[in-house]
């Protein structure tokens, strides 16, 4: 490979999964200190056909399959909060910033990114590349709606910026939303500008009997969850407001603990149209899930198993796909290595392939992580 720029030529060891940097199955990785450095590396990689696997802290590496890459690129050198403007409710941050650390800074000003904080160590860049949303999306919308501006190092080795640092913008195509959830297929995320939200006075988790009824009767609850340990709603607002909502939904006076994240050997994400959530849950019972957290009104069910054979998994996937849904493998290993991580390809796969080719003509950018092996 062409010489790497000197500042990033060193191999970084990282405290992720396994021995290699950030858990990537690579012998060598770079940690660029700017998006421009990252684009220099990508330019050299594109020139020489060197495939580059991207990672934040490596907490979601299995999503889309572990992949095989010649070189790793990690965001640990981009862990700065670049420009926080509390009055404007915006923050520009490096992709390597730890979401929990960032939330700590913002919460001191009673603000939040609304990004998921359930898993320790997750980076902003990782969350955005995956398009992962927190459970508050029922009320506040997905992470995609938080990303105002993005700077990426493209597969053809240029530093590209899209969007802007304002909360409302239709200046050109919406690159920030396109990059969100793109699994690093278009480029390595260097920095983002996030739209922030003020923290409410009170936020309370309340146990309810019937999640579907709670969803129908409440006005814009933060989340309505049906889980293996019962149903919960999250309510926000002023003290009076939350008290009134709690009574309206027949919740107990005591605040409940939200269900902990699913940490089991096998984890999958079931995604169905919101109206099909009960059907998705029924399919999951048939597949003998150990734990589950279903988001009513959203259509996402996270599920975990202590043990699951791939045949049962395939039956589950078929049943969900018949409803127009998808079952995505988040954690598998062993026999799951042979299972397609995404399932049936999307209708727009041809357009997706042409988009991928234009942003990554040499197919060196986290290749194979999208559905259809893109």
């Amino acid at each position: 490979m062409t010489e790497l720029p000197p500042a990033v030529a060193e191999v970084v060891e990282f405290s992720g999964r396994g021995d290699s940097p950030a858990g990537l199955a690579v012998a060598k990785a770079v940690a660029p200190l700017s998006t421009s450095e990252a684009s220099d590396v990508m330019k050299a990689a594109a020139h020489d056909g060197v495939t580059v696997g991207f990672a934040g802290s490596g907490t979601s590496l299995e999503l889309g399959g572990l992949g095989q890459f010649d070189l790793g690129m990690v965001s640990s050198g981009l862990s700065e909060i670049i420009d926080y403007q509390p009055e404007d409710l915006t923050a520009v941050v490096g992709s390597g910033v730890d979401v929990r650390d960032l939330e700590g800074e913002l919460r001191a000003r009673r603000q939040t990114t609304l990004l998921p904080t359930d898993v320790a160590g997750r980076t902003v860049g990782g969350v955005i590349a995956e398009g992962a949303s927190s459970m508050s999306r029922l009320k506040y919308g997905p992470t995609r709606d938080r990303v105002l501006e993005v700077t990426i190092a493209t597969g053809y080795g240029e530093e590209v910026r899209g969007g802007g640092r304002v909360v409302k913008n239709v200046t050109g195509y919406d690159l920030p939303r396109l990059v969100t959830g793109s699994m690093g297929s278009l480029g390595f995320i260097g920095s983002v500008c996030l739209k922030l939200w003020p923290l409410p006075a009170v936020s309370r988790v309340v146990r309810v009997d019937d999640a579907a009824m709670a969803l129908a009767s409440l006005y814009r609850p933060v989340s309505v969850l049906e889980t293996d340990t019962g149903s919960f709603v999250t309510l926000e607002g002023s003290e009076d407001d939350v008290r009134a909502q709690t009574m309206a939904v027949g919740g107990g006076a005591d605040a409940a603990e939200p269900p902990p994240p699913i940490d089991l050997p096998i984890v999958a994400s079931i995604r169905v149209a919101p109206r099909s959530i009960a059907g998705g849950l029924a399919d999951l019972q048939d597949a003998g899930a150990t734990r589950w957290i279903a988001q009513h009104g959203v259509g996402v069910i996270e599920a975990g198993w202590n043990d699951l054979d791939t045949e049962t998994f395939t039956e589950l996937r078929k049943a969900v796909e018949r409803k127009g849904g998808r079952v995505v493998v988040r954690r598998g290993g062993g026999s799951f290595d042979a299972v397609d991580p995404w399932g049936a390809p999307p209708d727009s796969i041809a357009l997706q392939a042409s988009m991928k080719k234009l942003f990554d003509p040499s197919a060196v950018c986290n290749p194979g992580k999208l559905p259809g092996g893109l």
Partner: protein
Amino acid sequence: MTLIDELIDIVGESRVRHHPLDLAVFANDAGVTSGTALAVAIPASTEEVTACVRAARRHGIPIVPRGAGTGLAGGAVAIESGLLIVLTRLNEIHEVDEIGRTAWVGPGLVNLDLSVNLADRGLHFAPDPSSQQASTIGGNVATNAGGPHCLADGTTVAHVLAAEFVTADGDVVMVGDEIPDAPGLDLRSVVVGSEGTLGIVTKVLVRLMQNPPDAATILLGFSTIEDAANTVSEVIGSGFIPAALEMMDQAMVIAVENFVHAGYPTDAAAVLLVEVTGTSESVHDAVRTVRTISGANAASLIRVATDSEERALLWKGRKSAFGAVAQSAPDYYLHDTVVPRTKLVEVLSAIYDIAAAHELTMLNVFHAGDGNLHPLIAFDADDPGKLEQVRSAADQMARVSLDAGGSLSGEHGIGIEKRDLMSLVFTDVDLDAQARIRDAFDPDDVMNPGKVLPAGSRCFDASGMRIE
């Protein structure tokens, strides 16, 4: 066969226009650009749209999609020798899912008609551009339209889950999905706001919102714009985002008050319209907060409307603003830039200076909560040189917004009107990436060519070498 004959075969003679007088009807949008098409086709189904696109392709004719033509940036204005495909007949509500709170609708459906239709089910479509009595959902998708209530709920992109989409080749593809987080690239997010340059949306899956159980609209008057702007910042900093937070300057208040008699204070330098919605407890708390903050910022008037009639009257003032301007002059140029909220006062002051320097009549009504400015310049286009003068002032206003860290458009789009200012926002490398997004959908540049991106935006060839 000529293109016209083919179009007549597809949609019938009554839905093809090609005589000069008929074409003139479609020559303008609500802004100041115009253009005459070679022909206009008005299909009534996805199949007819597909056939029109294929016919145009066979004849090597570029295509411009159009809804109601209420756009302000020229995105739906015809290009010479192009085919204008008007989608207003695809105006059905196909399916409403009350449990999932979504609906499949045609792109030709008028924005307000959807919410009116859903009222008895307690649901509505949140984007509410001022044009909502006329503009179509498809047009809203094309411009990623906003409106006052996008402050809390987001612009159109947050309310479109999926779209059936006819590509430049005439293929029908689904972008987005009924399911959340559909695996793969979210092409829906670039189709929304693409101003007809990527293809034609023929069916839209929209997200519906619950109608709020309670609401209050608060009218506030201030003797300085600074006090009003500080109130905006402090309300948003106080822990809740109001449903809407609109500002009007004195010139606009006077025009509106003459027209609607909504009871706006004409002696105030700035008026804020704040709407809070939610449970009755949350509305009660929010009203108290707004009262406290505006009082501390020397509000000269605080009027809280809670009954629907009085609320409607206050909103009528806001929503009639553009109509009210007709009293001042026959034409107007409505600008649209966004600045960080904290720069509102600074940028507004520069914008007043620009209007004064050009001796132009300017009124302001805008989405203060979003920092989305809408300087409105009233003028007479028959005055020789006036439009050029207006454009030159508008150009300067865009520049001061950008210098303050803002953007070129918040909700109207780029179209033709702002296309050549794109290089003020983006480097040539950024614009090249924008052109790649377009190429992925439309490599032959037949969908609404010449809109949004300046000519020569692709600056690298396929092998990554810079094109000189």
